[in-house]
């Protein structure tokens, strides 16, 4: 069998159906991959319109809620991130200062709240930047194919085949530690993922008959990409995004832990715990509170990502 025999049109696993007639029992749809013996493929049939915008948004609601909470939480912080409290330095937790004060006498609780906002939205920022850059490149590569596709994908592959965190370390070390540079560095190493995914999905969809049908229907190129290709790439991208938030939060914390994050006095969780480590034994709240906050954020992100993953997509392996 030659791989180029065009008689068998390539299909993605999208031909799942949830029709009354197609319950258990192999339909005679013999030559239709995906429709064969559905019972055994056994993928939970994607509910009608699984890929439509609203389902995606529904899946994302908890995410937005959490983001909003994190966004407004600092409003309830009793102090500013750099305010020195009257309690004095390294004061143990009290009803006034729940997580005590740090070596300067700043309220750890407030700093953690604000730090969580910084980490969370930094992570989101990197992801959105990555998605926009990567998504654009991927969409262009996928939609136009040919030489352009090849060049773009070679570049993407180059970045993909290098260890992102190590690269990030080098980049920040080169540009000098600051939150901005850290975010830039992470974006630089993060976008290729999205380029890959979007491109892959678009390519797969472009190979489906529905694209050819649309072309025959006289649909314009832009409309083809926007209406017939990209929506299909949406779910996997969203899933990857949501799964990445946790990773990024940890990556950020790691970088700032080794002194490549925002310089003091910025309330950066990683840096706070790194610099607080020396107080671990005498004044454990100083390093533990921010570290726990990192874990908490990552946990929340991962749980949400996981749920979104299960709601939108079964194919994701990342």
């Amino acid at each position, binding site marked *: 069998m030659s791989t180029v025999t065009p008689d068998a049109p390539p299909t993605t696993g999208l031909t799942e159906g949830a029709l009354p007639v197609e319950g258990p029992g192999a339909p005679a749809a013999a030559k239709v991959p995906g429709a064969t013996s559905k019972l055994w493929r056994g993928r939970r049939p994607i509910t009608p319109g699984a890929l439509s915008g609203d389902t995606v948004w529904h899946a994302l609601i908890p995410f937005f809620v959490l983001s909003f909470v994190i966004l407004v939480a600092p409003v309830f912080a009793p102090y500013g991130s*750099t305010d*020195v409290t009257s309690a004095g330095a*390294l004061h143990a937790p009290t009803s006034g200062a729940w997580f005590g004060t740090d070596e300067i006498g700043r309220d750890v609780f407030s700093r953690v709240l604000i730090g969580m906002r910084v980490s969370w939205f930094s992570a989101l920022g990197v992801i959105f930047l990555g998605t926009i850059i990567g998504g654009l490149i991927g969409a262009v590569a996928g939609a136009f194919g040919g030489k352009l596709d090849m060049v773009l994908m070679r570049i993407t592959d180059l970045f993909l085949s290098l260890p992102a965190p190590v690269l990030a370390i080098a980049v920040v070390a080169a540009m000098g530690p600051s939150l901005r540079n850290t975010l830039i560095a992470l974006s630089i190493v993060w976008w290729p993922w999205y380029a890959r995914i979007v491109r892959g999905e678009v390519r797969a969809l472009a190979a489906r008959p529905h694209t050819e049908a649309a072309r025959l229907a006289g649909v314009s190129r832009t409309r083809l990409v926007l209406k017939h290709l990209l929506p299909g790439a949406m779910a996997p991208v969203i899933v990857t995004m949501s799964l990445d938030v946790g990773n990024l939060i940890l990556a950020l914390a790691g970088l700032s832990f080794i002194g490549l994050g925002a*310089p*003091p*006095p910025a309330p950066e969780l990683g840096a706070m715990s790194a610099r607080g*480590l*020396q*107080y671990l034994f005498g*004044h454990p709240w100083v390093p533990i509170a921010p570290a726990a906050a990192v874990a908490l954020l990552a946990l929340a992100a991962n749980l949400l990502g996981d749920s979104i993953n299960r709601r939108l997509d079964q194919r994701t392996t990342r």
Partner: protein
Amino acid sequence: MTRRTLTLLGVLAVGALGAVGCGSAQKDASSTTASGDTQTLRIPYLADMSVPDPDVFYDIEGNAVILNQYEGLLKYKEGTLELAPNLAKSWKVSSDGLTYTFTLQDGVTFHDGSKMTCNSVKAAFQRRLDVDQAPAYMLKDVKSMTCDGNELTITLKSKVQPFLHYMASSWGPKVIGPEAIKENAGKDYGQTWLQTHGDGTGPYKLTSFKRGSSYVLTRNDDYWGTPANFQKVVISITPDMGTQRLKLEKGDFDAILHGFPASELESLPDNITVDKQDSLLRLILYVNSNKAPFNDPAVRAGLGSTIDIDQLVEQGYSDTAEPAKGVYPPGLLPGEPALPYKVDTAKAKAAADKAKTKKITLGYSADESGVQRRVGELLQAQLKTAGYDVTIKEVQLPQVYGYIENLKDAPDLLLMTNTPDGAHPDLWARIMFYSTGGLNFLGAQNKQIDANLDEALSAPDDKANALYKQVAQEVIDDNQFFLLGDVKNVFVMSNSLGNVQNTPAYPWLIDLAAVKRGN
């Protein structure tokens, strides 16, 4: 994945765990021996030292390796700033202060067994000039060195006030075995070899130098002086202070000689004692007078009434430092003018209002214990009260060295902890305040200071001291430097250690030859 491979993995896994299992039992034994091994002294370093080559080494961390291997002609007497004999049992200075005659100890041998002679000393000093790294400046003014038996006569081109202090300095010229150097000279006077080896006359020899893991010093049993009490000193690189502390409490370390956070001292268990000793380390605030706002003397002056030194030192260092009293480290120049700084918010604001810009940057050099960051952040808060908007950033030494190239981009304020090379006013003033001083990072210019220091160099002692006092006054009036604190050595030690001695001029260091287990 076949079942075969799977079972293989399984077996390996079990093997690994098994090893650890029986290991854990084994470990208890070995750990007890580790801490029970009374013959070994274990201390941590937070980071690798640069190189154990006395003619290149110009940092603090690592002086334990240098000063226990190598010896200079003189040293500082325990716990004082007085010069004391070392490889030279006595010395004479000509009245014009140009000729120094040192009478060397007899029966001194190098670690490689060869005898130390006057010529060895000459050779060693020559090497320092040949290698010509930072510390070489101490011998730059030497005209000639002549040997007569065990008498070394050094003649200088011009008088150098602190020359004897060079000989005692932690970074001063040390005597290295000429044979060893000759053998391993290579193209770089044996620098490569000295990166991992050594050949000195000191109480310990360097028997292992593993970068990133540990340096081992072993007792020199044919030491000409009183031999060391410990058979071995193991210095392990342990970057995390938390880990250091745990190992100290467990008895796997005997002492943490620096970097231990002051605020944690009281939380230490009873088996640990804390010993705070004077040092020449000083906390200094540099002011960048080469750009706005601090190119305006009036604005600079305002800082004097803005900075609350007592609070900085108190909160930054708890009681591991004293607020600075004078321009020179305590004890270097009796009767120097006292620092006049006094907090006065009104004045502070007034001065700040004259400032062209209130947005300023404050740099602080990175140090493991983070104390300077702490002070920096405190300082930031204080400056805020005067109306300054301060961005604070951590800077690395290489960058700091680079500032002189482009002072416009250098921070407006710079917070550093420095120490003079020796206990002499000139050694402090010259590197700090002289317009081309090695530690004058923000290029402070003051003709008067330069002139006075140059004059003092060759002036008779009393005249010189007068000049140094003038310099002090200049520094105070000019407000390009703010002396903030005198930092103490904080030795955190297992209380199984006794006879702990140290010298203010040798920071972060106890006398490893004198210290012993039990009192």
